[in-house]
């Protein structure tokens, strides 16, 4: 296993923009004008009539992926990725059935 622990690491520019706006004095938008400009483009709703979702669904289908979210809202067992943090002998059976 390659050891990459000493590589330089930085928080995502988008994360910094998103968390920065809620913490006093932490806005770094002025330090990252390119990210800020990209953010404007990524969030602006310029038209309510474009075909972006249709294009997304066509792309997903072409790649054998499921574009539709239906079912992921469903609350049946299995829709939650649950795991018991530790398996103790006394752990309730009702809880272990949720595990992946």
């Amino acid at each position: 296993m390659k050891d990459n622990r000493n590589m330089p690491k930085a928080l995502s520019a988008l994360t910094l923009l998103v968390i920065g706006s809620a913490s006093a004095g932490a806005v770094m938008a002025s330090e990252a004008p390119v990210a800020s400009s990209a953010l404007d483009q990524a969030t602006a709703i310029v038209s309510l009539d474009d075909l972006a979702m249709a294009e997304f669904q066509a792309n997903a289908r072409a790649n054998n992926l499921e574009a539709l979210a239906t079912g992921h809202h469903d609350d049946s067992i299995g829709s939650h990725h649950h795991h018991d943090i530790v398996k103790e002998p006394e752990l309730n059976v009702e809880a272990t059935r949720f595990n992946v």
Partner: protein
Amino acid sequence: MNAQLKPLEADVARPACLMEITRTGARMDAVMEGIMWARLRRMRTRLQEALGNAEHGVIARSIHAIYEALPADRQARVLLSSEFCESYMALDAARKQRPEAGADAMAWDAESARNLCAIHDLVQREKALLDLASGSTSRYLLESRDWVVDSPVGDQLARKDVQGRWTLETPPMLGDCVAVDLHSKVARHHEPRSGVLSQPCLALDEAEQAVVLDKLSRALAGIDRAEPLYGLVIRNFVRRIVVRKSEESTPDVARRFGSEHVPRQPGSLRLLNIHHPELSVEACMESIMHESTHNFLAAWELANGFFVANDYQHRVVSPWSGNPIPNSSYIHAVFVYYVCHRLLKSHLAVADNIDAAARAHVHRRLAVCAAGFLIEQDLSSRLMSTQPLNADIGTMMDDMQADMKREYGYGRQQ
């Protein structure tokens, strides 16, 4: 930092990019950045779709107007919140189910209205908090019957005092950027099908809150030390950690610990009873990493499409738990156990003050994580899908399995 150029360095539209989390290599930064921006754009498109539906009328017009009044960073906070994703998914499901609902059509109309109102409410909350930060108390807050109003991502709240004055507060934060949610409506919600939120909701006293925050902080520090990139995965893909206490720490109570990620709430994870002193920092590390890996995968799926249709009828017997689980959970599980194994192994290698009990716990968990990979059958062959799958998915699963078999010296001829 250049947020426009970074995503171009990695092809994040193919599932194969997700293997970077197993390698923790130099491209992982670009993959994370690319997935996050792609998800943001996809969420924007989802909102656009909801607002463009003529049936959504005055509420959609009002959502649009409030959204347009927000600066781009606040718009991004709305779009990336778990609450927004949950509501649009429910709205989308109602729209698709209604035409075939017959006598139940009114129930789907009610579901559409409820979720449209939920989106309206969360956009209003973000705007109200922005206004309050600049000294203005909005009509939304003045008319609110609540005493506390949370931001949709959960990292900021407004509180009303007995004089009716509203002030801004910040909830406890992990790693300076992940909200630890001990008290909000989200944290206290009862969800019958959840392994965590279906448990009784008891209040954490001050000492227990301190234990929870200290344990989470030490767990994240341990992850940062063992695999710094995994610390970034958590900070980038998790905005809110919901903590549920369902048991008192009395000696005669059988302990129940758990954690959970729900696909319809990306950016959130749930922890159960981590206030108990018996739960070690190492167990907490694994749990946070486990659920954060789900969040990383879910962010990619939301941006690009889900790995498989959510078919709860066809299930795979998990080689880890022995439970029959949906295909989507099974694919996630392969990544989750690989990543947790890598984290725990690195932790053992770098931690200098780990005691014997914790070391024994980590060795047990390493064995559990590895066990599912050390079966003769290819992991991809267990998938039960009736639809063709993206070829990357099976390849990734089998590559992780082969890697783990190499590590444990398991050959095909054994």
